[in-house]
């Protein structure tokens, strides 16, 4: 276990109470803005002081409220990457990276580390430039180089791609994935982007209002989000309140229909289904719907459907590729919600 975090912090009406652990892997903190993701990161880095709890990295205690341990940010060896990259504007790229190497006492060793990192990040052409002269992608690379040259025990990344244009994001994500693989130690990635989180991380902590809502491996969490919040964060757009009928049937109140589900329905408070899991035609849960709206996306349509005969129901979104909808195009559709695709959610 490389990192263990169990902290509490009160900040006005907001209360942060998180506990999680991770090995030498990428752990993502996923949540809506204001859920405490960045605060958690700042507690680990030593910028914010938790009211109580323990933080340890590789068995080294960084913070322990009982034993009154609270290492300074400098002593913690946590590489913190901000979304604006926080390069020192008054220093050149080379000076920025050298600043990162100052922990190393021996000047010869320091120079060696610096030139190695410059080499491996391909920065030799940028050394004399100031941060304001760099593109977003270059800034990110320099910031990562500056952090890694300081040989951190853990890497903390706060929304590392949010300052970039979307076409760049994808490419830089590939670069970062490689860097993280080479780093080989614990990485904590804070993000609100589920796709990014899915591609980069192995473990996921989902936060809601300062507490851990779901904690598990990426595949578990995405395949079977257990809570309404987790389902929303994995991008599930169709969620309805549910009243259990028996262990394999619920009434989806917001859609006004009864559904057959997998077992365990008795505890469900909500049901959800991903837009791409919906099928057309007959089946266990076939629902006759009227088309209320067709929203055009770049490469697909989202067809909004309301079950016929249900009063005040909220529409179900169904994602279809353009050709399929062009062929079908009608006012009414018979939908099938496969029982195995229906997510049973706690509140």
């Amino acid at each position, binding site marked *: 276990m490389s990192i263990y975090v169990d902290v509490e912090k009160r900040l006005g009406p907001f209360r942060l109470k998180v506990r999680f652990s991770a090995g030498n892997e990428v752990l993502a903190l996923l949540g809506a803005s204001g859920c405490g993701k960045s605060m958690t990161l*700042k507690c680990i880095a030593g910028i914010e002081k938790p009211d109580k709890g323990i933080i340890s990295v590789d068995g080294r205690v960084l913070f322990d409220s009982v034993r009154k341990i609270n290492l300074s940010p400098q002593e913690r060896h946590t590489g913190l990457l*901000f979304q604006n990259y*926080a390069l020192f504007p*008054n220093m050149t790229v080379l000076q920025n990276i050298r*600043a990162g190497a100052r*922990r190393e006492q021996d000047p010869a060793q320091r120079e060696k580390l610096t030139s190695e990192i410059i080499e491996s990040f391909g920065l030799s052409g940028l050394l004399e430039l100031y941060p304001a*002269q760099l*593109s977003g992608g270059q800034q990110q690379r320099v*910031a990562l180089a500056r952090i890694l040259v300081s040989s951190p025990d853990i890497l903390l990344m706060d929304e590392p791609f949010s300052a970039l244009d979307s076409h760049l994001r994808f490419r830089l994500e590939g670069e970062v994935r490689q860097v993280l693989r080479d780093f080989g130690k614990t990485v904590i990635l804070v993000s609100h982007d589920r796709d990014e989180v899915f591609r980069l991380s192995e473990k996921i902590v989902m936060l809601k209002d300062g507490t851990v809502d779901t904690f598990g491996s990426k595949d578990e969490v995405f395949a079977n989000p257990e809570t309404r919040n987790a389902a929303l964060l994995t991008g599930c757009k169709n969620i309805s309140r549910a009243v259990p009928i028996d262990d394999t049937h619920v009434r989806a109140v917001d859609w006004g229909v009864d559904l057959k589900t997998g077992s365990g329905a008795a505890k469900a408070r909500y049901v959800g289904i991903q837009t791409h899991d919906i099928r057309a035609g007959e089946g266990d849960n076939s629902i006759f719907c009227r088309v209320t709206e067709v929203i055009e996306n770049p490469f697909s349509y989202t067809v909004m459907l309301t079950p016929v005969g249900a009063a005040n129901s909220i529409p179900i979104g169904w994602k279809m590729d353009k050709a399929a909808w062009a062929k079908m195009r009608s006012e009414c559709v018979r939908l099938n919600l496969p029982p195995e695709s229906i997510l049973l959610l706690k509140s």
Partner: protein
Amino acid sequence: MNLFPLWNSLRIAGISTFIIFFLGIFAAYYISKAHRVVKGILDVVLTLPLVLPPTVVGYLLLRVLGPNRLIGSWFLQVFGLKLTMTWWSAIFATVVVIFPLMYRTSRGAFESFDETLAYSAQSIGLSDTYIFWRIRMPCCKQGILAGTVLAFARALGEYGATSMIAGYTPGRTATISTTVYQLWRTNDDELAFKWVLVNMAISFVVLLAVNMLEKRSYKTPVQKEDS
């Protein structure tokens, strides 16, 4: 024309500005980090000399530094030193009067500083001293320089508190501003006008310097495109 008042004004303003540069910056730095309530109170107290009439400042200074008063009498007994009516007495008055200018402008500069720079620097192991002198100060350079120049200009023009605590002794404590008043009082209009011109010239140059400092921001050359 005896140039002593010019020299005296310049050394008083120079020394006061030097002192206030460090005092103002450190007050600004520590107070901007202080608790909200402490900040509010200190802010008012430290800005007070900016709005008080200089004569009130002079009066208050005389009450503590005068030969029969608390600090003044102690210095007289222990060092045999009179704190008033010497050329350097004016430094006390000037320091108090220009402090708020330096404090306010540096605090403004520090408040616009992006704290994530300091956090990142800490996390890669840079000491707080290094961060202060090599990152925070260079990033806030413009505001701090502007504050310094403004404080210097104000120090040159200080009259009220100075005349109360240092008086006017030609060749010993006379400054430009006290000289102008004295010359006007004694109907030496011609010489008074010359000193007025000297004063205006200095102020003009100083304000020009402030303006140039404010306009010159970080050069942002053409951004490079990702390809």
